[in-house]
């Protein structure tokens, strides 16, 4: 059985605790700890890891490592500080990788 994790600053993620997702609190600036946590979660049976966009911006190298692996799926969600659009631009990057140019979001 797999589990779902949520990573981010406390204010952004505590709501998910009520839904029964495993919350891992990483405050701004604790990049090293965040990396360790992410690695630990990826080794354990967390199949989906939701991560705030603000945190993901600090961990982009780690996240890129898990991109082509079947597990875990790292999905960006907006945090309490607002939406940076990083989540959508990750999708855009997939399109660019596959097609060669962006044909979905071009507006």
């Amino acid at each position, binding site marked *: *059985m*797999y*589990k*779902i994790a949520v990573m981010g600053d406390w*204010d*952004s993620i*505590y*709501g*998910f*605790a*009520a*839904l*029964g*997702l495993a919350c891992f609190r990483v405050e701004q600036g604790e990049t090293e700890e965040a990396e360790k946590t992410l690695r630990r979660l990826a080794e354990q049976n967390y*199949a*989906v890891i*939701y991560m705030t966009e603000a945190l993901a911006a600090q961990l982009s190298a780690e996240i890129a490592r898990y*991109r*082509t692996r*079947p*597990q875990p*799926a790292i*999905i960006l*969600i*907006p*945090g*309490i500080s*607002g*939406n940076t659009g990083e*989540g*959508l631009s*990750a*999708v855009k990057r*997939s*399109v660019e*990788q*596959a*097609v060669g140019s962006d044909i*979905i*979001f071009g507006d």
Partner: protein
Amino acid sequence: MAKGTVTPTRMELTRIKRKLLTARRGHKLLKDKRDELMRQFLNLVRENKELREKVEEAIREANRSFALARSGMSDEAVRVAFMTPKQEVTLDVTTRNVMSVEVPVYSYETRTSDGADIFSYGYAFTSGDLDAGVARLQEILPDMLKLAESEKSCQLMAAEIEKTRRRVNALEHVLIPDMEDNIKYITMKLDENERSTQIRLMKVKDMMLEEAHHYKEKAEITD
């Protein structure tokens, strides 16, 4: 494969011809694979985009409620409210094969099936906005899982498409033209050899006839 490295023999020619046949077939198959992957990818990516917009909007709304709730509650109160979650979600991951790409399929189970029975706190010390935020998140959770599924699939398929496209291009623009060039080179070389053998034989025949009949001497005498 540069031209200089192939030996112009009949055996090599047969070998390259056979290889070319295989390469052509592989190229066609890979091209079909790429086209089909691309079609599925584009459908999936459109779905992904819609889901993402929906999920982000819902989370934004939930966060707005939480921010309101936080303004009226102390940090401790919030922490206590979420200390012992009632609900628990477990995930079951199976894979689906899309053109040889293993994409995940998530199905989830919750401990309490009743969506209204997820609040891990009594309502006495918490703000109503907190309830609204949690309810909104609860509502969007299935979509969040769908989003995870389609986004991961998109990532995996994008990588596979890139790989397949490279292979198709390598076959189309490098391997197949090279082999065609080699075949042409060997055929021409073999033809050339054959012609030169023919000429050599003709010359030898002339020389042998000359030896036997002494045509040249006779011609001189008659002159």
